[in-house]
C-alpha cells in the first residue's frame, strides 16, 4: 500500500506541477491584472468597461454572431452526425479523419481562401454570374464572418454529436419503435435526450471560439467589424492596456464558467443514472 501511494504521487506530480504553473497561476495573473489599475490599486473599472458603448457593441455583435454560427453548425451537423452514426462501425475512423483533415491546411490560410471565394470579383460570384444569377456582396459583412466561423468550427460540432449518437444502443431505439412510437416521437423522446451530452460539448466547442475570435473577423470583416476578441487583442498589442484587456478577458471567462457548471450538472446526472 505504502509503495503504491508513492507511485501515484510520482506519476501524478509532473502534471500536478505543470497544471498549477501553466494553467492556474496564469489565470490568477489575468485575475490580478483585470482587477487592478496601472498603479496596482484595486478597481472594477476594467470589468465595468464592458458596458461602454464601443465595448458593449463589439461584445453584443460577437454574441450575436457566435450564437448564429453555433445554431447553424448545430443544424448542419445534427443530420450529418445521424447519417454517419448509422453507418458501419469501420467507417468511424474514416469520418474522424475526413473532418480533421482540413485542419492540416493552416487555419488562417483556409479563412484567407474564403476571402478569395467571397470577394465581389471572387470565385462564388464568378459561379453565380456564369449561371446568370445576380452577384452577392458578402465579403466584409457579418455574413462573411459567420461563414468563416461555421467553416472553422463545424468539425468541433460534428465529432461530439457523432460520438454521442453512435454510442446510443440500437436496442433502445428498436424498443421505442416496438412500443409504438412514431419516428418523430422516437427522435424527440429517445434520440435527442440521449445525445444531450454531445450537443452540450458541441455547443461549447463552437460557441466559445466563435465568441472570442479575432482572426476571422479581421480577415473576413475587412477590419470594419470589431468583435470583442479584436478589442482585447488591440488592448494588448496596440493600446498597451493590459489591465483593460485582462478585465475584458475576465468577462469572457464568465461564459466558460457557466459552461463548466452546466456540463458538471449533466455529468453528475449521467453518473447518477448509472
Amino acid at each position, binding site marked *: 500500500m505504502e509503495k*503504491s501511494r508513492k*507511485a*501515484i504521487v510520482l*506519476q*501524478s506530480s509532473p*502534471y500536478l506541477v505543470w*497544471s498549477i504553473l*501553466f*494553467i*492556474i497561476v*496564469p*489565470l490568477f*495573473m*489575468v485575475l490580478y491584472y483585470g482587477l487592478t489599475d496601472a498603479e496596482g490599486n484595486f478597481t472594477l473599472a476594467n470589468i465595468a468597461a464592458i458596458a461602454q*458603448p*464601443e465595448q458593449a*457593441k*463589439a461584445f453584443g455583435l460577437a454574441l450575436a454572431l457566435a450564437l448564429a454560427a453555433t445554431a447553424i453548425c448545430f443544424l*448542419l451537423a445534427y*443530420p*450529418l452526425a445521424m*447519417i*454517419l452514426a448509422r453507418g458501419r462501425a469501420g467507417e468511424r475512423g474514416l469520418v474522424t479523419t*475526413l473532418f480533421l483533415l482540413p*485542419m*492540416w*491546411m*493552416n487555419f*488562417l*490560410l*483556409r479563412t*484567407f*481562401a474564403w476571402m*478569395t*471565394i467571397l*470577394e*465581389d*470579383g471572387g*470565385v462564388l460570384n464568378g459561379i453565380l454570374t456564369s449561371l446568370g444569377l445576380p452577384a452577392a456582396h458578402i465579403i466584409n459583412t457579418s455574413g462573411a464572418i459567420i461563414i468563416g466561423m461555421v*467553416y472553422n468550427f*463545424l468539425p468541433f460540432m460534428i465529432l461530439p454529436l457523432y460520438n454521442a449518437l453512435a454510442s446510443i444502443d440500437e436496442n433502445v431505439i428498436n424498443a421505442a419503435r416496438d412500443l409504438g412510437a412514431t419516428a418523430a416521437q422516437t427522435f424527440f423522446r429517445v434520440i435527442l435526450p440521449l445525445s444531450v451530452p454531445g450537443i452540450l460539448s458541441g455547443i*461549447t466547442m463552437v460557441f466559445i*471560439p466563435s465568441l*472570442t475570435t*479575432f482572426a476571422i473577423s*479581421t*480577415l473576413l470583416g475587412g*477590419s*470594419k467589424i*470589431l468583435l470583442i*476578441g479584436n478589442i*482585447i487583442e*488591440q488592448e*494588448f*498589442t*496596440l493600446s498597451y492596456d493590459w489591465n483593460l484587456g485582462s478585465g475584458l*478577458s475576465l468577462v469572457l*471567462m464568465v461564459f*466558460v464558467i457557466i459552461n*463548466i457548471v452546466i456540463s458538471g450538472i449533466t455529468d453528475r446526472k449521467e453518473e447518477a443514472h448509472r
Partner: protein
Amino acid sequence: MRRTLERIYMALILIFMYLPIAVMIVLSFNSSKSRTVWGGFTFQWYISLFKDATILNALANTLLIALISTLAATFIGTLTCVAMYRMRRPGRAFFTGVSNIPMINADIVTGISLMLLFRALHFDQGFATVLLAHITFNIPYVLLNVWPKMKSLSPSTYEAALDLGASPFLAFRKAVLPELAPSIVAGALMAFTMSIDDFIITYFTKGAGFDTLSTMIYAQVKRGVHPQIYALSTLLFAAVVTVLILSGRVRKRSGAPGKKADYQKRRVKNRILACTAAAAAGAIVVLGLLYGGVFSDAGNKVYVYNAGDYIDPSVITQFEEETGIEVVYDEFDSNELMYAKLAQDDSAYDVICPSDYMISRLIQEDLIQPLDFDAMPDATQYIGSQYYKSAQAFDPGNRYAVPYCWGTVGILYNTKMVDEPVTSWDILWDPKYSGQILMQDSIRDCLMVALKKDGFSANSTDEAQVAQAAQDLIDQRPLVQAYVIDQARDKMIGNEAAMAVIYSGEAIYCARENPDLAYVVPDEGSNVWIDAWCVTKDAKNAQNAQTWINFMCRPDIALKNFEYITYSTPNIAAQEIIEDEQIRNSPIAFPDQSVLDRCETFVYLGEKADRMYSNYWKKIKSGS
C-alpha cells in the same frame, strides 16, 4: 431515395469543407501573384519555396514544436491517466477539471494568461515559451482520449500479471499498454494536429523574430500572402493524405490473418522497435531544442524591427555575407504596434525603423539612444541634407535618426472607375462610390484625411476638431469597403476598389502593375512622412545596429531597396543612379516643392492627446 438524399447532403458538406482547400491548391499553380487573376499554370512557387529561408525556418519551427510538444504531452498525459486510475474521487476530479480549462477556455485568454506569466518570470519569449504553451494545451487532448479507455479497463489483468511475478512496470507494459495504445495514438495525433493548427496562443506567447507558419501567415495576410505559402500548404496537405492512405493500407493488411506468431522473435523485434522509437524521440527533442536556440547564447547578431515588406530580402543576406553578422529580422504592421512591443521590452530589438511622430515620442520617452555618426560615414555622406533638415521637426539636432524612406499620403484611384478629376478628399465621402473606397487601418493616417478635409491641422489636439473629424469618419463608414494596410495594393491592382488612401511608394508600385491607376495629393494638403532608422536605448548589439544603418545608406543598397519597395529614397547618390528615367523624374516619387508645401509632418501629440485619438479611433472602428 432517402439514401441518395443523404449522400447529397454529405457531399454538400464535404464540398463546403474542402472548397477553400481546392482554392489554395489552384492558387499554388497560379503564375500571377494576385489572388484574383489567373495568370497561367506554373511550378515556380514550388521551386522558389525551397530557396525561401524564412518560410523554411517557420516550417521547421512549426514541425519541431508540434513534435516535441506532442511527445511531451503524450508522456505526461498517459502517466497522469495511470496515476488517476488508482486515485480516489477528489484527485480524479481535480485532474479532469484542470485539464478541461485549456480546452474550454477561450484561446485568447489562455494565450494572454501565459504571456503574462512569461513576462512576470522574465522569460525570453520565443521557441521555449511557445513550446511550453503548446505542451500545456496538448496534454488535455491526450487525457481526453486516454482517460475514458483507462477508466474502462478492468484491474484484473494487471493484478494477474503481478501475481505471476511480473514487476509493476513489466505488468503495465504487457497488460495495460497494449490496451491503451490505440487511444494514446489517437490522443497524440489530435495533439499534433492542434499544435500545427494553433494560431492564437502562439501569437501571444511568441517573442521577437520567432515565427511559426501560423503567425507568419497572419502577418502576411494583412499585406498579401506570398504564393510560396500556397505551395507549401499544398505539399503539406498532400503529404498528410499520402500518409493516411498508406497507414490505412498497412492496417488493412495487418488485420488480415497472418502467419502463426513467433513470440520469441516478436519480443526481440518489439524490444528493438521500442528502443529505436525512444532513441528517435529523444533525438528529436534534443536536436529540436538545440535548433530552437533554447541552450544557445547570443552570438554576433543584430535584431532588426522594420515595417512590413519594407526591404529587399536579398539585402539582408548580402549584409550577413559581407559583415558576418547574423540578422534576426521581424516586421510590424503599424507604428503603434511597434511601440507596444518596445514599451514591453526595449531590448528585444537593436535597430528599428519608425515614422517621424513615433520617433519624437520615442525620444521623449527615452526609448532610443543617440547615434554615433562617426561610425556611419555613409549616413552623413549620401543622405541629402534637406532630409536631415526636415527630420529636425521630430529629431532636433539630428542625433537619433537616419532617414530611410519618405513620401506623401494621397488618393490612388482607378481612372476607368472614376471619371471626374480627383482634387479633394471630399470624393471619399461621395455616395456614388459606396463600397469602392479603401481607407488606411491606422489611427493617424485615417484621422489626418478627415482633419485635412475639414481644414484643420493633421496634428490637431483640439478635441472639438478631432471629434468633428471622427464624426465625419463614422458617417463615412457605410461607404468604406474595408480598412486595410498593405492589402490596398492587391485590391487596387485587381480592380477590387475604385480608390484608396495610400502612401506614395505603394502608388508607384500599383501604377506600374496596373496602368489605369493614378495618384494625387489632394489640394487641402496631406501628410509628408519620413521613416528613419533608430537604435533602441537598451540595444544588446548597438555596434551591429549602426553597422546595419550604415549599410542601408550605401548607394547601391539604397537603390536595390528603392527598386524593390518603390518608396522614395532620401539617398542622393542612389537617386542619381536610378536607371528608369520615368521613375527618376516621377512626380509621385519625387514631388514638386508646391506639393510638399501643402503637406505637414506628423509630430507626437503627447500622451493625453494620444489617448483621445485612441478613444475616437475605437469609436470610428466600432461605428458608435
